[in-house]
C-alpha cells in the first residue's frame, strides 16, 4: 500500500488561508489502512480547521467526504456536484489522489493534506516500513525476497557497503543492514550463489511512467487486409 502521513497542521492551515469553503475528501483505501487519511481523520481535521479559523475570527465552512479511492475518476465523480459548491478541495489521499481529483475537476483548487511517504507494509501496530521502490525491474528472485533497492540506504545490488556495524545500517541504527537479512535468507534457502554473481547496474526508470496494456483494451476496428 501507499503509506502517507498528515502534514503539520500549520502547513495545512496556511495552504487554506485564502479559502472559506473547503471540502475535505478522505480516501478509503491505502491512507485509511495506514490510519492517516480515512473517514475518522477527515472528521478530526474538519473540526480542527473550523476551530482554528474561528479562533482567528475568520470562519471557514468545511465539508467532509470520504470516497473509496481517489485514484479512479469514477469514484471521484461521486463527489462532483458537492465539490462544485466549494472554493477548494483538501485531499487526504496520497499524491496520486490529489492529482486524480485535480485532473477531474480542473476548475477547482485541490490541495494536499498529506505527505506521501512510500510503498510499504505494516511492521506491527502503528508502524509501516518501505519495502518496494517501484523500480520497474524486480530482482527479488535473487535476493531472497528482500529488496535492497528499497531497503538499502544506498540501493546497492552487489552486496553491502563497508558501513554496517553489528548488523545495523550506517545511516540509521534503527535499521538492520538489509544485506545481512538477504544473506541470512539466501543461506536458509540455499541460494547463496545469487549473491556471488555480479548484478549489472539497473536501468533507471524514466518519469512519468505510463503503463498501457493493449491486451486489456478493446481492439480498434480492423483495417482492410489484415
Amino acid at each position, binding site marked *: 500500500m501507499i503509506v502517507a502521513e498528515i502534514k503539520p497542521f500549520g502547513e495545512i492551515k496556511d495552504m487554506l488561508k485564502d479559502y472559506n469553503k473547503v471540502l475535505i475528501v478522505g480516501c478509503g483505501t491505502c491512507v485509511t489502512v495506514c490510519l492517516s487519511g480515512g473517514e475518522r481523520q477527515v472528521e478530526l481535521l474538519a473540526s480542527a480547521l473550523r476551530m482554528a479559523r474561528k479562533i482567528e475570527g475568520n470562519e471557514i465552512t468545511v465539508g467532509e467526504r470520504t470516497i473509496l479511492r481517489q485514484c479512479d475518476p469514477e469514484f471521484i465523480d461521486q463527489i462532483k456536484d458537492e465539490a462544485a459548491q466549494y472554493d477548494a478541495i483538501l485531499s487526504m489521499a496520497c499524491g496520486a489522489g490529489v492529482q486524480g481529483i485535480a485532473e477531474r475537476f480542473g476548475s477547482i483548487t485541490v490541495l494536499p493534506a498529506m505527505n506521501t511517504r512510500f510503498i510499504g507494509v505494516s511492521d506491527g501496530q502503528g508502524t509501516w516500513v518501505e519495502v518496494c521502490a517501484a523500480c520497474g525491474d524486480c530482482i527479488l528472485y535473487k535476493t531472497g525476497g528482500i529488496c535492497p533497492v528499497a531497503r538499502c*540506504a*544506498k*540501493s*546497492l*545490488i*552487489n*552486496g*553491502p*557497503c*563497508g*558501513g*554496517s*556495524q*553489528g*548488523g545495523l545500517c*550506517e*545511516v540509521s541504527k534503527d535499521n538492520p*543492514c538489509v*544485506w*545481512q537479512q538477504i*544473506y*541470512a535468507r539466501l543461506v536458509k534457502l540455499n541460494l547463496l550463489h545469487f*549473491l*556471488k554473481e*555480479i548484478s*549489472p*547496474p539497473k536501468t*533507471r526508470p524514466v518519469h512519468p511512467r505510463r503503463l498501457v496494456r493493449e491486451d486489456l483494451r478493446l481492439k480498434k476496428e480492423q483495417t482492410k487486409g489484415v
Partner: protein
Amino acid sequence: MGFREALDSGKFLITAEIGPVKGTEIDGLLEDAELIKGKVDAINVTDLQSSVMRLGSMAVCHLLKDLGIDPILQLTCRDRNRLALQSDLLSAWVLGIRNVLALTGDHPTLGDHPQAMPVFDLDSVSLLKVIGRLNEGFDMAGNQLKGAPDFFPGAVVNPGANTETALEMQIIKMEKKIEAGARFFQTQGIFDLDLFERFMKRIEGFKTTVLGGIILLKSAGMARFMNKNVAGVFVPEPLIKEMETTKDKVKTSIEMAARLIKGLKNLCQGVHIMAIGWEKRIPMVLEEAGL
C-alpha cells in the same frame, strides 16, 4: 617507479592517505605530501570523505602528480551517476592520474549536507567493471572511445567486519571486485593482527594484492570513538590502555603503528597508512618500522 610498477616488482608496498581541505587553502596539504614523497609508493586522495563537502580528489591528485608523487584517485558512487563517473575517469586520465580506488562511498546523511541526493547509480563492483571497459576503449553503453585510458584499479575491503555474516559478505564482495578487475585492495585500519591473519587465511586462494590499513591512534578517546562508530575498526583493550597510560602519546602512537606494520609484513603485501592529520609523522612511523 610508479605504484603499479612497485606492485609488479613484488616489493612491500607503502601507501598513505591525505584528505583535501574544505576550501582552497592547499599549502599545508602539499607540504605534507612533500614530506612523505619518496617514502611511499603512492598517496590516496579521499573523495569527499565522510560525505563532507570539500576540495575534490581529482584536482589534488593532479597537484600531487605535478609534485612527482603517484596519486591514487579515490572515486565514490555517492555523488555521480554513470555519466559523470565515466567522464571524470577520462578527465583524471588526461590529468596524468593512473590509479583509481573504486568505493561505494558514505551516505550523504552522515556528512554536512544531509539533504543531498544520494546517487549510487553504480556500486563499487560495477564501477570497477566500468573502469575495465574504459581501459578496453569502450564506455558502459558500448561506444568506442577515441583514445582509451589504462587505469590501475583497486578497491577496499573491510576485514574487521564484526559479525560473521558481515565478514562473509565482505569476502564474497571482494571476490566480485576481483572478478570486476580490482588489482589491489586497501583495508580498513587493523589493530588486531590475529584477526587479520585469520582473514588473510580465508582469502588465501585469491590472486590479489592486499595493503593492510594502519590508522595512527592519537588517544584512547579516539580508539573508543572508533570502536563505537567506525565500521570494521576495533582497537583491543590493551592498546587503549597503552595509549591511556603513556606519557608521550605521539611516541606511543608511532611505536604502536610500527609494531603493527612489522606484523603485517608477514601477512600481506603492503600497508596503507591513514594518518588523519598526523601525515607529517608518517616518516617517523616508517623509520620505526624499519621501512
